[in-house]
């Protein structure tokens, strides 16, 4: 995108100083509305059980699924609750999925004295051939067999199955369906090129300086310092930067208080303090030039449970002075220039990755959209606030850009729905490992990765290959 427009003046700066250099005005801030109100928690009370969130989820999604079931299998199918099932009768049941996994870490087992178990080391995936699927609704549960991919599905998904109950008490599934894409939102995108830069996983404080130059190059491109005139004028069309989590590296996480004696760790400052100062300076450079939305991630100093609340502005005193800085929740939803963005910092996708056979982040991202829920595994394996009135993770309106941060590599796909929905799925790679960010053109929902590199001693070409 940039290159074509910038090409004509590419070599322009290889010349003696010329007349007054141009100053491009950043595209004006227009059409931004923050839609992440459901993800903001006010007063938090932890007196509720987690069962309520499942009940709400099922109640909210049941009508959607019933309609989908009718449209898929005919209007005349019998919609039954589990308690109304009769053996042998073909019907459709809507319920919550539960996957009984042998390898799923269970704190009760770990501390049980009977078993004398050593705590299980974290595995990349917890799937096992012996896993079973169970469908639950408000009153009962039933085991599922048949045309369901046990390995692929995860706990917490609401879906509809079509089949009949067998004599052995299990439900034989002939077909199943998910909620599919929610209703489309009209898109009033800009008529000219406007870009949004998505980056995640800056990983400050990691102790290794590999990606620091690349981070600086990223800042310089966005703020218009780097590049020839053509590129700078293109960069002026970047209307927003969204940092999708993990600005801090995992190495800032602990002072090793568990293993070290207290007298050794008492006076040590948490590593995150230095990193936040660095982040503050980086954000200051960005905010003085472009609106920035900062989402917290897994390793950022905010609460652990989803929805993660915005970083507190007192940690970013320099950057908070600018109105262009917006500290937002994770997940995050907003209308930018008429285009609806919805995305997370990646915890939902990586959690599903652990409990499902799906390997591809883009595939998982697409699957969550089709299932109609941002994070079905919350609260089972992913920490989540005990909602009892509503489940804010249900996707009610189809976004135009659906992203997840901290993916291993950059991927994007334009998904078209049955009812004309068009969604751009983007997996934003971790910047600290890939030195790649994403540029999304709001005009036509196209996406291009942008990567940065310096040169190192070992490179013959002086060029670090982009990992894809």
């Amino acid at each position, binding site marked *: 995108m940039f290159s074509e427009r910038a090409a004509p003046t590419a070599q322009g700066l290889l010349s003696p100083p010329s007349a*007054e250099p141009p100053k491009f005005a950043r595209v004006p801030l227009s059409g931004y509305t923050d839609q992440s109100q459901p993800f903001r928690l006010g007063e938090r009370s932890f007196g509720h059980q987690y069962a309520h969130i499942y009940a709400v989820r099922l109640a909210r999604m049941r009508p959607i699924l019933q309609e989908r079931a009718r449209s898929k299998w005919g209007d005349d199918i019998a919609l039954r609750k589990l308690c109304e099932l009769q053996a042998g009768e073909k019907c459709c049941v809507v319920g919550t999925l539960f996957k009984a996994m042998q390898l799923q870490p269970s704190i009760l087992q770990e501390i049980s004295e009977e078993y004398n178990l050593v705590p299980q080391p974290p595995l990349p995936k917890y799937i096992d051939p012996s896993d079973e699927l169970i469908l639950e609704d408000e009153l009962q549960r039933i085991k599922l067999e048949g045309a369901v991919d046990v390995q692929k599905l995860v706990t917490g998904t609401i879906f509809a199955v079509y089949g009949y109950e067998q004599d052995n008490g299990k439900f034989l599934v002939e077909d199943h369906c998910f909620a599919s894409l929610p209703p489309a939102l009209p898109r009033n995108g800009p008529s000219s090129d406007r870009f949004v830069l998505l980056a995640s996983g800056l990983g400050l404080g990691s102790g290794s300086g590999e990606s620091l130059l690349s981070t600086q190059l990223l800042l310089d491109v966005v703020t*218009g310092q780097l590049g020839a005139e053509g590129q700078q004028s293109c960069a002026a069309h970047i209307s927003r930067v969204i940092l999708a989590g993990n600005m801090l590296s995992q190495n800032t996480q602990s002072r090793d208080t568990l293993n070290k004696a207290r007298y050794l760790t008492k006076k040590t400052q948490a590593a995150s303090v230095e990193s936040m100062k660095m982040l503050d300076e980086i954000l200051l450079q960005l905010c003085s030039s472009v609106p920035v939305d900062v989402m917290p991630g897994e390793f950022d100093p905010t609460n652990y449970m989803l929805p993660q609340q915005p970083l507190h502005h007192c940690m970013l005193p*320099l950057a908070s002075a600018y109105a262009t800085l917006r500290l937002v929740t994770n997940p995050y939803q907003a209308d930018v220039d008429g285009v609806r963005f919805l995305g997370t910092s990646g915890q939902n996708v990586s959690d599903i990755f652990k409990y499902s056979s799906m390997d591809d982040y883009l595939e998982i991202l697409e699957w969550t959209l089709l299932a109609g829920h941002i994070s079905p595994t919350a609260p089972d394996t992913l920490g989540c606030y005990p909602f009892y009135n509503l489940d804010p993770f249900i996707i009610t309106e189809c976004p135009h850009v659906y992203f997840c941060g901290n993916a291993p590599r950059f991927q994007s796909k334009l998904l078209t729905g049955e009812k004309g929905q068009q969604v751009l799925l983007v997996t934003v790679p971790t910047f600290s490992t890939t030195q790649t960010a994403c540029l999304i053109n709001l005009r036509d929902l196209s996406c291009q990765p942008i990567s940065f590199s*310096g040169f190192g001693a070992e490179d013959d070409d002086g060029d670090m290959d982009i990992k894809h």
Partner: protein
Amino acid sequence: MEDELYLENIDEFVTDQNRIVTYKWLSYTLGVHVNQAKQMLYDYVERKRKENSGAQLHVTYLVAGNLIQNGHVCHKVAVVREDQLEAMKSKLSTIASVHVYSIQKALLKDSGPLYNTDYDIVKTNLHNCSKFSAIRCDAAVPRPVVEVAPAQTSVQDGSQTKSDRSAASVPAVNGRGPSSAKPTTQQPKGIMGMFAAKAASKSQDTNKETKVESKEAPSVSATSSKPPAKGNIMNNFFGKAAMNKLKVNSVPEQPKEEKEVITPSVPEAAPESSLNTVVEKPGKKTEPARNQQKDKKSKMKRVDKSDNEEEREPENVKKKRKRIKQLQSDSSDEEGIPPPPTPEEEKPPSPPPVPTLKTELEPASTEVSAGGRKRKRKRVLKSKMFIDDEEGCMVTEKVYESESCTDSDDDFKTKPPAAPKQPVLPLKKEPKEERKNVKKGVAAASRASKQVSIMGFFQKK
């Protein structure tokens, strides 16, 4: 000529100072647009090489363009050494920009030093990091420094509001953040001291307070708007009856407000100091009342001498309870309290400046208690004996002291209503200050008179 100037400058930087001159560094140092800096560097390289082809000059370039990778087009931005430039250019399908990135004498093995150079220069120019950039953003304006007042409550709650944050985009804000908490704790004490002190000693108090406050004032923005806001609270506090007795109604509120307010401005403190005396009494009265109420440990119930005061107090206390400073302000109040006994609801200016001594002690005690402020305070009934020269007798008074649990030296005394006499001589031990207790009929364990000693520290526990 101007042209020659920059060439000389670059020459000096590169050859004499042996620096790595990046375009950004040059732009900030010479104060020119980044594009001009890039062109200057290029110009210098060209001329130098023309003059002296053997010149020891290494250049790094920035190349950006489209790169086809894995089937899709990626926009690549790379810093390359001169010898890698052509190779890189050939890799890119479309070139978006090429320009000089840096010049240095030595051959760079890797790009780390480039980053360091830029990092240093940006760090020193954080406040105007986009000044020489090619893009300006109209929406990016730093917020003006807002009153810290609204932040007070939030500070109490343990979080700072945006207003605080917007104090400055300068690193000074970093310093402000933590320090603003401190001033707030100090401030109430200072103000409370003002109230506690007697009229005559007010000036002294004021001086001390201003001293205390002046410490904080620089770090805190004035909260001129606060006092008016607080006025209402203070009004409630005093109650109508109390208010009527105040000689100066509005002014006392201000000092009181300031008490509540975390950061009163110094100038405000000064003029108000004189008026503080008046407020002192009500302050004192309300102090004990508030103190009691706030004191969670206190099991004593006080008869409410002044109903309206008490009525107001709960709500004030409630409001105050949210603030951590509350306790401190209370303690400071009590500390600076002059001995003069106050009849139930009076707010008459306290008589003779008992607190000549007290005032001297006030600042000390306020400071001392500052630390202990955060601890809980207990009300303990103690007997105080002193010689009342006026009447030529010894007076024993039972007084409520509010003691900080952790700091034994901070004692606040409040006189039980039973003692209408005003102690002329302040019974003083360093941190002790007497205060009249407006409420009646509170029984409390009496303690031996406090003496400044470290044992008190243990006793409190």
